[in-house]
C-alpha cells in the first residue's frame, strides 16, 4: 500500500483508524461466512474430499506406492485387491492406485490453472467493460456474445483443432471458454456498483480509474467470483478429462484420469476397474467442488437460500 495514497484518501480518518476499520471489515465479512459454511454438512464434506485429493496430488511422490509408468508385464490386468496392488494393475501391469494419484496431480493442476487463467482475463475484461462502458463495453461484450454463440464443448474442440491436441492446448482451450462466464458476472456487478456513493466519493477524491477498479470495485465483486470459480474448478477438471478421453488432451502414457478412462475402455470386459476408477475420481472431484461452491454461495448470501 502506498502511504501517500492512503493519506490522500484517508484525510477524514487518521491512518491507524483506517487500517483497523479495514481489518474489522474483512473479519466482519469472512468470519460469519466461514461459520455458516462450517454448519453446512455438504459443503464440509465437499471441502474434505477436496483437501484429500489435493493432499494426495501434492504428496504424490511420497504417497504413491509405485512409479505411475512402471511397466510390469507379468502382472497385467490384475483386479483390485491383488496383493501389492490395492486397486489392481492396467494392461501394462502399471499400478492403478499410483496412476490415479499422479493422474489427480495432472487433472487438479489443469483444472485450477484453467480457472485461474479464465478468471484473470474474464475479471479484467468484465471490469473494463463495466467500468468504462461505451465503446469498450460494446466491443468486449459483442466478442463475448459471439464466443457464447458456440456451445462450450464445440468451442474447446475448435480451439484444439487449431492449435493441435495436447494437454497444454486443452487447458488453454478450456480456459478461453471460461472467460465469458467471469466477464459477465463481473461486468454485471460493476455496472450496479459504479453508481454507488462510495465509488462516486472516490471520483470526487480524485482517485485514478485503475485505483477505483482494482482497489474498490474488485474487492466488492470478489465474493461472486470466488463462488463461480469454486464451482468452475470441478467443471474444468471434467472438461479437461473429457478432452483427454476424446484423444484431444493429455496423451498416453501420461497418467491422467481422462486418458486412463479412455485406455481402460478397451479392456472393459476383462478389467472394468480400469475405466470405473478414474471416472469415479472425476465424479468425486466435480461433486466436491459443487458441494463446496453451493455452500459458499449460500454462506455468502444467506438470503439466497430462502
Amino acid at each position: 500500500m502506498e502511504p501517500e495514497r492512503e493519506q490522500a484518501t484517508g484525510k477524514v480518518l487518521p491512518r491507524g483508524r483506517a487500517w483497523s476499520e479495514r481489518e474489522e471489515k474483512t473479519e466482519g465479512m469472512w468470519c460469519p461466512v466461514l461459520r455458516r459454511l462450517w454448519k453446512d454438512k455438504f459443503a464440509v464434506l465437499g471441502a474434505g474430499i477436496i483437501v484429500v485429493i489435493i493432499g494426495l496430488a501434492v504428496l504424490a511422490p511420497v504417497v504413491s506406492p509405485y512409479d505411475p509408468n512402471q511397466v510390469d508385464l507379468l502382472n497385467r490386468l490384475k483386479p483390485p485387491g491383488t496383493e501389492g496392488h490395492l486397486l489392481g494393475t492396467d494392461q501394462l501391469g502399471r499400478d492403478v492406485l499410483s496412476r490415479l494419484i499422479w493422474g489427480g496431480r495432472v487433472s487438479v493442476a489443469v483444472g485450477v490453472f484453467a480457472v485461474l487463467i479464465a478468471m484473470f482475463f474474464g475479471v479484467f475484461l468484465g471490469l473494463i467493460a463495466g467500468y468504462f462502458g461505451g465503446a469498450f463495453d460494446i466491443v468486449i461484450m459483442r466478442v463475448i456474445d459471439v464466443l457464447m454463440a458456440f456451445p462450450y464443448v464445440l468451442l474447446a474442440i475448435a480451439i484444439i483443432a487449431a492449435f493441435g491436441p495436447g494437454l497444454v492446448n486443452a487447458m488453454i482451450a478450456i480456459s478461453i471458454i471460461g472467460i465469458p462466464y467471469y466477464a459477465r458476472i463481473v461486468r454485471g456487478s460493476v455496472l450496479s456498483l459504479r453508481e454507488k456513493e462510495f465509488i462516486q466519493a472516490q471520483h470526487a477524491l480524485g482517485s485514478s480509474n485503475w485505483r477505483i477498479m482494482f482497489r474498490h470495485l474488485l474487492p466488492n465483486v470478489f465474493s461472486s467470483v470466488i463462488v463461480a470459480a469454486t464451482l468452475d474448478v470441478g467443471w474444468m477438471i471434467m472438461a479437461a478429462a473429457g478432452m483427454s478421453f476424446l484423444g484431444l488432451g493429455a496423451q498416453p502414457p501420461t497418467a491422467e484420469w481422462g486418458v486412463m478412462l479412455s485406455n481402460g475402455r478397451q479392456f472393459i470386459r476383462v478389467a472394468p476397474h480400469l475405466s470405473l476408477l478414474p471416472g469415479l475420481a472425476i465424479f468425486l472431484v466435480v461433486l466436491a467442488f459443487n458441494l463446496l461452491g453451493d455452500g459458499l454461495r449460500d454462506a455468502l448470501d444467506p438470503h439466497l437460500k430462502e
Partner: protein
Amino acid sequence: MFRYIVKRLLWLIPVLLGVTVLVFSIMHLSPGDPAKILLGPKATQEALEQLREELGLNRPLYIQYFTWLGNILTGDWGRSLQLKREVLPLVLDRFKATAILTMTSIIIATVIGVISGTVSATKQYSWLDRLGMLISLVGFCLPVFWLGILLQLFFGLKLEWLPMTGMYSPGSEGNFTDLLLHLILPSLTLAAGAAAVIARMTRSSMLEVIRKDYIRTAKAKGLSQSVIIYRHALKNALIPVVTVVGMQVGFLLAGAVLAEMVFSWPGIGLLMVNGILARDFPLVQGSILLVATSYVFVNLLVDLLYVLLDPQIAYD
C-alpha cells in the same frame, strides 16, 4: 414484439459472421503451412505452389476469408483429405445421427426433469424432494463418458439387455426397432445432465409460481391440488423451463460427441474428432460450422418461442 423479433433476427448477422470467422481461423491459426497440411508431408514444391495459387493462399487473409465464405454459401464446403469425399453431404449425413441422438435425449431429459422438478416443488422439503434433488446433483456431476461406460457395463455386458455400441446391428440398417434399441443407452447417458438442470429449474420456477396470489385464489375456490398444479401452476412455471430446455438442446448437440465416442455412435462429433486427429481441416471446419450454425438457429427458435409464451420479454 415485432421490433424485438426484427432485432433478434438482425443479431444473427454478426453472430453468424463471428462463427464463420472463428471456423475460418482454425486452419490459419494452426501451426504450419495450410498447403502442406492439405497435401501432406510428401508434396513437391511445385504441387504446393500450384495449390497455393489455386486456393488463393498467396492472397491477403481477408480476401481468402471472403472467397471461403462465398464457397460455403454456394454449397462448396471443400473435400475431406482423409475420406476423399465432398464435405457437405458427408457432414449432413453424420449430423442426422447426432440430431436423432440429441432430440431423443432432450425428450427424455424434459420428461424426467419436469416430472421430478414438479414433484419436488409440490412436496418441498419432503424426503421425495430431497431424494430428487440429490439425484439431480449426482446427474449434474456425472461425467457423460463415465455414465455411458457404467450403463454399457450394466445393461450391455452384465444383463445383456441392450446393444453396447453402434446405431444398427449389422444387417438391419434402417430397421426402426433396432435403431430404438441402440438409441436407449446413448440417449439416457446424454440426457442425465440435462434432466438434472431441467429438474432444478422446474422446481425453483414452480416454487415461485405456487406462492403467487392466483394460486392462493384457486386454493380458496376449493380446487383440488392436482387441478391447481397441472391446470394453473405448471403452465406458467414452464415458461422459464422452455429457455433452459432450448439451451440444453444446443449443449447436447455439441456434448453428444462424448456419448458418440463411448457408444461408437456414427454422429458428427465423432467425425470431427477423427478429423482433428487426422488433421483433416476441411472436414473439421465443415463439421464445426454445421454444429455451431444449428446451435445458433436453435437459440433463435428458443428466443422467439419464449417471446410467444411470455410477451413481456419483448418489452424489457
